[in-house]
């Protein structure tokens, strides 16, 4: 039927256009999603790219200065949920990470209004760029809404 063909073609055109948008935007506007460990292993070329990293906020590392620049350190969390359960749950894993001197850490520099959910042991999802001095300059900072019972962290890219 004539109209059915027209409809199908129109539908497919729309689908194709949206698919194009999806692929194009993923190329341009999506970030690498990495663990603290992976960020530290990045080479100079990757430093050009905007990336997103997540980790747990280290207690005692949160420093605000008077002009609104925030410094804090995040520490690597086990990426695999099974590893997390072996450690005895998220809280245990975070405690272990906090007390582990060998756990990879990353210093974050963020310029902006004091984030409302930032506190020790919160999980942070930070977007920005790694700079030559080894610190991560964040454009965007998201923090997991704090809750007080067992929770699992964001499943991170673990290879």
């Amino acid at each position, binding site marked *: *039927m004539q109209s059915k063909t027209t*409809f199908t073609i129109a539908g497919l055109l729309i689908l194709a256009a949206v698919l194009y948008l*999806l692929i194009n935007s993923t190329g341009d506007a*999506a970030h690498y999603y990495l663990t603290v460990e992976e960020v530290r292993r990045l080479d100079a070329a990757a430093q050009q790219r905007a990336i997103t990293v997540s980790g747990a906020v280290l207690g005692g590392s949160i420093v605000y200065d008077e002009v609104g620049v925030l410094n804090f350190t995040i520490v690597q969390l086990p990426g695999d*949920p099974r590893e997390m359960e072996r450690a005895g749950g998220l809280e245990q894993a975070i405690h272990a990470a906090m007390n582990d001197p060998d756990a990879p850490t990353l210093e974050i520099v963020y310029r902006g209004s004091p984030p409302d959910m930032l506190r020790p042991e919160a999980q942070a999802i930070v977007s920005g760029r790694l700079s030559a001095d080894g610190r991560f300059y964040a454009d965007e900072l998201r923090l997991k809404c704090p809750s007080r019972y067992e929770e*699992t962290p964001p499943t991170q890219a673990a290879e």
Partner: protein
Amino acid sequence: MLIEIGDSLLMLSLMLAVYAAGAAGWSIHTRDERWGRSAQNATYTLAGLLGLAVAILLGAFLSNHFEVRYVAQHSASDLPLYLKMSALWAGQEGSLLFWGFLQALCAAIAVGRPPRQARALAPWAAVFLNLITAFFVTTIYLQSNPFILLAAAPPEGQGLNPLLRHPGMIFHPPALYVGFVSLSVPFAFTLAALLTRRVAGWTSALRPWILLAWLSLGAGLLLGMRWAYDVLGWGGYWGWDPVENAGLLPWLVATALLHGAVMQTEQQGFHLWNLLLAVAAFALTLFGAFATRSGAIESVHAFADSGLGSYFLTALVVTLGGAIILFIIRRDAVREGAAREDAPLLSRQGSFFLTLTLLMTLTASVLVGSLLPALTELLFGRRFVATADWFDRVTGPQWAALLLLMGLCPLLGQAATALRRLRRRGWPLLVAGALATVLIAFALDLRHPVSLVGFTLVGMAGAVTLAELAGGAYHSFRAHGLRFTVLRQLLRHRRRLYGGYLVHAGVVLMAIGVIGTRLYPFSQDVALTQDRPTQVGGYTLTYETLRHEIWPDHETFRAAISVTRGQAHAATLHPRLERYPGIGQNVTTPALRYGVNEDLYLVLMGWNADQSVITLRVAVNLLINFLWLGGATMLAGGLLAFWPGAEKNMAMDQ
């Protein structure tokens, strides 16, 4: 004792739900009415039992029973009454229990008073609705039980997160849950329709449920947006966070379903669409629960629990798998039920088809974005995450296309006359609308090219919607005189039509707000010295004082900023920062000055040692109040359409 009763109530509810589903099924098999009525009674009782369970938990909150783990985690003695009540749904277990209760209540209403056209489907719907309730109760009982006691009662509770102490946050979760449970009804009836081969003629009977879902989800989303704007202090209202998306996805499908139901009422087919949409809407509800309550998808507000995630994932797989199998088995019934209308693309039916297609591609886009890390890891071995920019780029053109369709569709009548009508009446309206808004934009010095395209679409859609709203009224007034009673008659008999156009008007207003805030952002960090006026963003700001207040559980730093526009003093704003040393958390509360065309938004960032200089983030949010006005208008339109009452003359004249 009461808590133990609560626990028993859960077990009892589970058994009852399974019985209700079984009895309903048995009544179909044996054609024995008594089993059907017994199943009905069981369904009603289920709502009562779960309601009792919720009441018990609420009682524990109100009487400060901190030996209940959930109460200790979310309440404190000094919390005001209304916050103690809303703490019920502040955490994982309580919110899931509340959701389960609403699900049971919804099942009871749907089974007790099924829509007339769908009465034959009610027994099967009862089976599925009770199975859904059983699922929720099982999940709560095994994985997320609020009725757990601590070994020793702590003297005091941990209190409610300061961020949640906001009216928006009180009503946002219940609104969303009402929306979610309402979508289970069309789903259950869809499965029932497929099983009994009665695929035509009943979707529109379920319109009240779909509209309720649309209204509740819309209200919940808007409340969440307003909360984010008021409280979170980043000047925005929507971050494309996976949890936000979890509420948006079912809402988009509900919108599509509403439009599909209109088509089905007008005998224009779309049967298969509506059946699929009903299943998709419910499936997305389960997906949303999975996304927010498991750690699998990051988000700012996930409750997070890996065990819970697998429950919802299993439910999702069973739901989709079962539905697909059912569609395949009954494909002959589905095909024969569809009306074959021959219509060109440029017609009412054609534009509805395009609208539904776009709404579904939007849904798919948002879904892909939420799952992008998992998808990209699967396809490319590398994890990518979708930024807000990604979502804007992917969804922006789709929203724009929808806006265009909103302008064109009312102008198109039935197929034969569409082109003629468009040429004669449509074009002048579209052009006038487009020109008017673009000229206004230029006059206001808003010249960003993308925004001009947006404003053109806004103008076209706005002009057409206004014409439709006013046109009917004009004809009635012309025929019967300019009287209030005429207006009232009009509203009463064309409720659905006027409700729909009011919603469209709301969308147009919201579009203005989105264009203004997204395409003309202004945000600047400014250091203000005491008593020295500074020019920022068209305002003159003077830092006057910084007050330090000490409260039992927090300390507040409250700045007084005097704002001048031109020569006149506009306002004194008080952005503040609260420190909660017990939790180790800071909460910034922005100060707002509302204006017709923009909001001035101040956030306190820091100050120097002797408090002579403070740092503020100053944002000017252009046209943002159109967003809130538009949202309120949308809800008003939905409410108008939802209002029960006589609907005369449902066919579209003209």
